Structures are given as C-alpha cells and as structure tokens.
C-alpha cells in the first residue's frame, strides 16, 4: 500500500524529515508517535502533497506509484485521505455541497457512478450518526463555527463517506474528551478492512486503547527511531519519550 524509503523532506527550506522509512501493507493499522515538533504532521502533509512540503530525496510509493508525481487532488482520488490536525473553515460552503463535490470527484476517478442526491443524503446522515454529529451540521458551512471536537468528528464523517484506501489521521484525538474519543474510535474501527490501511498520528497512547494498532513507530528528529507492536505504546506511556533519546531503531 505505502512504501516510504529513506525520505528526506523540507518545509520552507528547512530539513524536517531526515531519512524516514515506513512500510504499510493493506489491512494494517500503524501508529506514529513522537514528541511535538518531531515531524509527524510534516509526514502527513508530504504524503498528501501540501504546497511547500518538498521531498528532497528518497521516495514515497503509493501502490507502487511515486506520490511526488501526483497532484494533491490526484492523490486524494487514488485513495489517500488526510484527517487534518487543524481543519480549516470554508464559510458559506455547506458541508453537504462540499461532500457532494468531493464524492463526485473521487467516485468518478475510481470509475464508480457518483451517488445521486438522495442516496448521498441518506449516506451522509448515516455517517453523521456514526460519529454523533447532528444532521444540522450537513447544512452548515464547512467547519464554520464548529467547536474543536466537532471539527475532528466532521473529518471522520467525511472519511467514512469517502471510504479511502489509506487514511492518515493527524492527531484526531487531541482536544477530544473521552466520550468523543470513543465515538471517533468506533468510526475509525468501522472502516478497518483487509484492503484498507490506517495511519494514526498521535501524541498520546490513549487513542490506542480504542483503536488497537498492529505496529507502533516512534518518530523523533525526522526519523523513525523505534518500531514495535502495540506494547511499545504502553512502554512509551510509562517511560516517556526521553527513554528513547539517542536511541536508534
């Protein structure tokens, strides 16, 4: 699904990722943990193709194709979904209208007939329910005046509707209370399937109690310094990141 090989990337001319490698197979759930500023969001943004995030060497292959050769919208249509750490507002554009444009673009690229308005609305209502978001949110402007938690749930709602192949969740858990966390986890778990891969970027191990990962990686200084199974998260919780300082994977 995703093969990242010795990836170096810079943001605004500053080297952030310094030789990161990661291999994710279909059906797997990987957690990427690390201290603030270690490059977790940078990795998500590089994979999704945000302007200004440049691959300087190494490569990232999505189903065998280098993402560097794809525009952001092409990556999205190929099945890469990024749930943003800080979802932005688009005033006046209703969530529903936004979902419709997105669904049409992605379905068409997949060679699938886009959903008709009635089916889309029904599906949108279902996924809203799954993440405990009132249907009224479909009519409101994208993230317009949403609380932090509502924005995060809105991201997951979109993900559930668009059914990506590779979901990158950038600190979706931060700012959520325990109830909301469980709701989000339930949504993400419902998407787990043998053809789909999920990357959970998180600062805390708390989320991993609800979405149990197959692998845990520790990112520090732009590289993965340790990888392991789900136990690694607990170890980190007990000992802190400093435990790994200077440690190489």
């Amino acid at each position, binding site marked *: 699904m995703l093969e990242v090989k010795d990836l170096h990337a810079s943001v605004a001319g500053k080297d952030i990722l310094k030789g990161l490698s990661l291999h994710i197979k279909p059906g797997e759930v990987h957690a990427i943990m690390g201290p603030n500023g270690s490059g977790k969001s940078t990795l998500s943004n590089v994979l999704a193709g945000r302007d200004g995030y440049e691959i300087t060497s190494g490569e990232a292959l999505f189903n065998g194709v280098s993402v560097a050769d794809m525009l952001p919208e092409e990556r999205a249509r190929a099945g890469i979904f990024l749930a943003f750490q800080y979802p932005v507002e688009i005033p*006046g554009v209703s969530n529903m209208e936004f979902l419709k444009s997105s669904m049409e673009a992605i379905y068409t690229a997949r060679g699938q007939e886009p959903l008709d308005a009635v089916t889309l609305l029904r599906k949108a209502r279902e996924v809203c329910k799954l993440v405990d978001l009132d249907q009224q949110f479909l009519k409101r402007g994208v993230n317009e005046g949403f609380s932090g938690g509502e924005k995060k749930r809105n991201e997951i709602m979109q993900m559930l509707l668009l059914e990506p192949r590779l979901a990158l969740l950038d600190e979706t858990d931060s700012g959520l209370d325990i109830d909301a966390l469980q709701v989000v986890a339930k949504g993400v778990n419902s998407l787990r399937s043998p053809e789909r891969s999920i990357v959970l970027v998180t600062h805390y191990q708390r989320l991993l109690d609800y979405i149990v990962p197959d692998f845990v990686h520790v990112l520090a200084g732009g590289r993965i310094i340790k990888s392991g199974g789900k136990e690694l998260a607990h170890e980190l919780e007990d000992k802190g990141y400093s435990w790994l300082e200077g440690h190489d994977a």
Partner: protein
Amino acid sequence: MSNQAELDKLVRSEYSAGFTTSVESDTLPPGLNEGVIRFISEKKGEPDWVLEWRLAAYKKWLEMKTPTWAHIHHPPIDFNEVSYYSAPRSMADKPQSLDEVDPELLRTYEKLGIPLHEQEMLAGVAVDAVFDSVSVATTFRSKLKESGVIFCPLSEAVHEYPELIKKYLGSVVPQGDNYYAALNSAVFSDGSFVYIPKGVRCPMELSTYFRINEAKTGQFERTLIIADEGSHVSYLEGCTAPQRDENQLHAAVVELIALPGATIKYSTVQNWYPGDAEGRGGIYNFVTKRGVCHDNAKISWTQVETGSAITWKYPSVILRGDNSIGEFYSVALTRNRQQADTGTKMIHLGKNTKSTIISKGISAGRSENAYRGLVRISPRAENARNFTQCDSLLIGDQCGAHTFPYIESRNPSATLEHEATTSKVSDDQLFLCRQRGIDPEKAVSMIVNGFCKEVFKELPMEFAVEAGKLLEVSLEGSVG
C-alpha cells in the same frame, strides 16, 4: 504546481460573450455636438420638449468636469472619439413583430442564452432586448397589458405616455446630477420604461438585456420604473459586449420611483467585456442608479458585477417617506486589471426608515476593488436604522481591496451598525478541497460562491443560477 501558480492561472479566463454580430448598422461618426443630439432626437422622432431637455443637459455637461474622487485610474476619455448612435439598419423600418426582425439579431440573443421567441423563453420573464442604441424587441407586452403593466422601450413611452415621462424623467437623477448623468441626459438612447398600476403585483419578472455590438460606440441607455401605490415589481438587467482592443463607454441612468406602499426589486448581472489580461480594451462603465421611496415603500438593489474594465456605480435609495426601506446587496468581482469603485448611498429622510447594505468584493489578479458607501441620516429621520456589512476576499497578493464608508448622522435616535472584514482564499482552504479530490478551479469557485451566498440568495431564482455560473466562468482557468 504551487497553489499560487494555480490561482494565477485560474483567474485568467476567456470571456464567453465576446463575439461580434455582423449586421449593417447606421452609425454616427464619432464626435459630440448639438448636431449629434438633434440627430438622435430626430431618429427617434421625439417631441420638441424632449429635444429641449437633451440640449439643456448638454449645456450643463459642457460646464462640468470629470469626477476624480473615485479609486480608479484611466487615461482621459476623448468624448469626440465616441460614436453616440448606432442601430442595425434593419431596425430603421421599425419591425412590427419578431418575424420581421433580422434573424442575425435574434441569433445574437439566442447565443447569449436569451431566446426572444416567447414560446422558447423562460416562462414568467418578459424581455426588452436593447442592441446598441435601439430596442430590438420587447416580449410579452400584450400579456402584461392585461394587468395594466406597461413595459416598452423608453423611446416609445415618450410618445405614448408623455405625462408620465414629463412628470418623472429626471425627477430622481436630475440632468446635472453628475458628469456622466448629464452626458446621458443629453445623448440617451434606448432603455426600458415600466409602469405598474396601483395595487398590481406584476405577473412576471421584467428584464432588459443590453448588448453593445458596434465598435467605437458608446451605450447610453436610460431606464425609468414607476411602481404606483401598493404595487410590486421585480426587474432584472443583464449586459454583455464583444471583445475589442479599445475601450468602450457605457454611461447609463436608471431611475426608480416607488410610490406609497410599493416594492421594486432591481437586480443586475453586469458582465460587460472586462478587457484582456494586460488591461487592453473593456468597457468603461459609469452608471447612475437611484430610486426614491415614498411612505412604506421598499427598493432593493441586487447587483453582481463581474465585467467592465472600470465600474463606477452606486445604486442608491432616497428614503423620503416614513417607514420606507432601502436595500443594497452587491457582489463585485475584479480580476486581471479590472477596477471597480462601487457601493451605494442610503439617504434617510423619513421617520423609521431602514436600510441594509451587504457588499462582497472579490479581487484577483492585479485588480483594484473598492466599496464606497454613504449612509446619511437627516435631522427629521427619527429612529432611522442602518446595517452595513462589507466583506472583501482577496485571491493572490497583487490585488487591492479598499473600503470607504461615509456616515453622516444628524439625528441622535439613529441606530447604525457597520461590520467589515477582509479575508483571503487561503492555501489551507484550497488544500483542504484538493485533499478531498476537488479540482482547484472548482475549489476556488466554490469558496467564492460561498463568500457571496448572502447576496445570491437575494437574486431571483433563474438569475442566481446564472450568477453562480458567471463566477465560475470568470474564475475557471486552464485557458490561461
């Protein structure tokens, strides 16, 4: 490709109404003098009093100077380089029905999406089609007559309803009101005349479609709408012109009279040729639009301004009567080298008068977009209220957005609220859309449409769709 480069590409696009119609025209040679005014008046077979009125305006104009206070820049206009009258030759015999109108002219309107054959038209919209200096056709006239509504070219109204014209022409925008209004009063060509009788709700939308075709000509139409007591009318106006390298002048005057209890809703979609990416060509649009509200009357202006090299336009309302209401909803989009200085004046004279101003300016490319608005509360306007909201959206970083709000309140009981914001189509918004698979072009037009939502919802349904599309066309790229 970077978002900035994408944006730059997006805001350049082709103008779809830029074709020319090849018809033989009778066009006056360029130049302005008394002889030209007499010629226009004679062509229209006007009674003497109209000619006198024109000549008086011309005298005033000669003594006036071009206004310089607007935030626009252009080389001085040589008014002797402009032709003041042009009409398709086929219109000289005054066709009595559509069958007698040159098919080439009908095709022009069809290409613009406005079929003039009644059976093909949007049901419920009557159209007056003005081509250069003359009205080509006015549809549904007889049907409107049944409810007493008069909808005809102003040149005809001068003959058929002289009392109404004498009473109201120039009553809201006097001849010497401003430089361009004076010029218009001297050389005005066709425009629409509307009269809605007492208590009548006009059974259809009325609309006028203005087309400038001939090179080097100006268009100087004049529209007069009178809504008698308790009546109601919704009027739409659209405009386009061919793509040409030289600038063309458009100086119109619109006067609205809302008698006690009447409502006039006036909507404009202005899509005159804006000039090319380097700022060559395009229409210079200097327009005076004003309405007067008597007791309990309401006038609502909605405008979507996407065209013209220069837009200088301030649709205004004089709230003369008690409890009268004035509204102004505006979207002004400028891109490339376009310049817009537009806004409104709300003049509160009566008691309990209320006005609302919602202005949305979108600037892209190297354009300049200014909102200029005056809210004046006179001493006797007890309990007057105004709400102004003025938002600017910037696309890219080479354009300019400006707001010039003027507030003059001479009555302490007035309630005035003013809100203003400036925002950018941010890289983050664009990236969110692209990350969801949406084309950058589609994304920008979606973001812009969202920004304009409050104004679009004021447009009549058919127009709202058209306006949304117009912004799409205006922003859609890849033609670069």
